[in-house]
């Protein structure tokens, strides 16, 4: 569907699907683009769906955790424990320091990102159409196709990396790691020359972590969503192309099951690896 008063075209359709529902500072009501608000704009749909999915994850797991029995588990408990054990094993294999945070962090990332990615498999028009019926014109339901979500996650991980680096190595140790590697010299004068190069290299390495983390997830999910939208455009042409679109959508959705799981796993795995690197003293 196009926004009210707009002609139904492919471009409009696609643009409509890629537009967030926003509220802007200094303006009342819901918008699709805030001219003057700049940074202080909130993507209501992204926030709503990510929070909803996070609450689904948290409440489901909390429910199982409360009722968890050490005896013969039920099916739901089995499923949840399978995930927990999978994450625990992955963490134990990669992260060798003791930490109460890392495993729950990895579990949260894996399940939450997976659930947010899973929204990609919901037919692209279903929820936006339902939203139109209750008066919301725009609705982007996959939070991970919003850079804000992926950057929110990766910056959180980035802050933890810095926190753990300083906690384990101390502030001076962290600074040393940034300045004395990879080029190191016994000669103090030579070392002084090498410090800027080291700092540039290490800063890039450090900053590349959150950026690659978020861009990977965002790119993968955005591209996937875009292809679903393009397939959906095919339905509006004619019967033959529409039928082909149906086949394509099924194929892409099945393939996407792999992609969304893989992306969630990669995000979790890299988080563990980065945290492990941060917690290791050289």
């Amino acid at each position, binding site marked *: 569907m196009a926004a009210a008063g707009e002609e139904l075209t492919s471009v409009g359709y696609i643009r409509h699907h*890629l537009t967030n529902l*926003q509220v802007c*500072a200094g303006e009342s009501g819901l918008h699709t683009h805030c001219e003057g608000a*700049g*940074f*202080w*704009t*909130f*993507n209501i749909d*992204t*926030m709503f769906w*990510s*929070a909803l999915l*996070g609450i689904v*994850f*948290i409440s489901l*797991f*909390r429910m*199982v*955790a*409360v009722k*968890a*029995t*050490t*005896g013969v*588990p039920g099916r739901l*408990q089995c499923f*949840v*424990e399978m995930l*927990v*054990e999978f994450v*625990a094993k992955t963490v134990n294999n990669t992260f060798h320091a003791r930490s*109460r*945070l890392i*495993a*729950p*962090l990895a*579990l*949260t990332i894996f399940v*939450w990102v997976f659930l947010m990615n899973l929204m990609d498999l919901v037919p692209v028009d279903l929820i936006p159409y339902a939203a139109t019926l209750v008066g919301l014109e725009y609705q982007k339901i996959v*939070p991970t196709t*919003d*850079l*804000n*979500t992926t*950057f*929110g*996650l990766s*910056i*959180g991980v980035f802050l933890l990396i810095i926190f753990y680096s300083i906690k384990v190595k101390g502030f001076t140790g962290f600074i040393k790691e940034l300045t004395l590697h990879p080029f190191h010299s016994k000669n103090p004068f030579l070392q002084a020359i090498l410090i800027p190069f080291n700092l540039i290299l290490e800063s890039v390495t450090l900053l590349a972590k959150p950026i690659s983390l978020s861009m990977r997830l965002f790119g993968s999910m955005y591209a996937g969503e875009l292809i679903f939208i393009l397939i959906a455009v095919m339905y509006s042409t004619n019967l033959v192309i529409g039928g082909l679109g149906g086949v394509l959508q099924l194929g892409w959705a099945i393939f996407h099951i792999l992609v969304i799981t893989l992306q969630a796993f990669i995000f979790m795995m890299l988080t563990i690896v980065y945290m492990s690197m941060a917690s290791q003293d050289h």
Partner: protein
Amino acid sequence: MNINATLISQMISFAVFVWFCMKFVWPPLIAAIEARQKSIADGLADAARASKDLDLAQAKAKDHLRDARKQSAELLEQANRRRSQIIEEAQGEARIERDKILAQGQAELEAAINRAREELRGQVAVLALAGAEQILQRSVDAKAHADILDKLASKL
């Protein structure tokens, strides 16, 4: 698609979810899993121990069985020995008894023979006396000739 304040809200919700997970989700679940792992490990250890116990018990039972068999064989042998001993004893006793009975019989027989002989001797003496009387056609004083008669009788 621009970065905006949503970023901050997403970071906050991320932090809240991680905190909640760390506080209220992960510990009970991992505790339940570890408790079950422990109970399974204990169960397996128990099963191994039970099977070892079973092996021991079986070996012991086999030992007992062998002992019992040996004992029974011994008992049987003993009984056999005892039987032959009893038989032998009985045979000995019977032999003694038989000898006794035989001896007694013999003695009785001899006594009877002697008696008969005495009788006969007496009778023979009488007969001889009677014969002699007849021959002599007179009575012989038995008393006077008693010594002769006795000598005769002892010769018989």
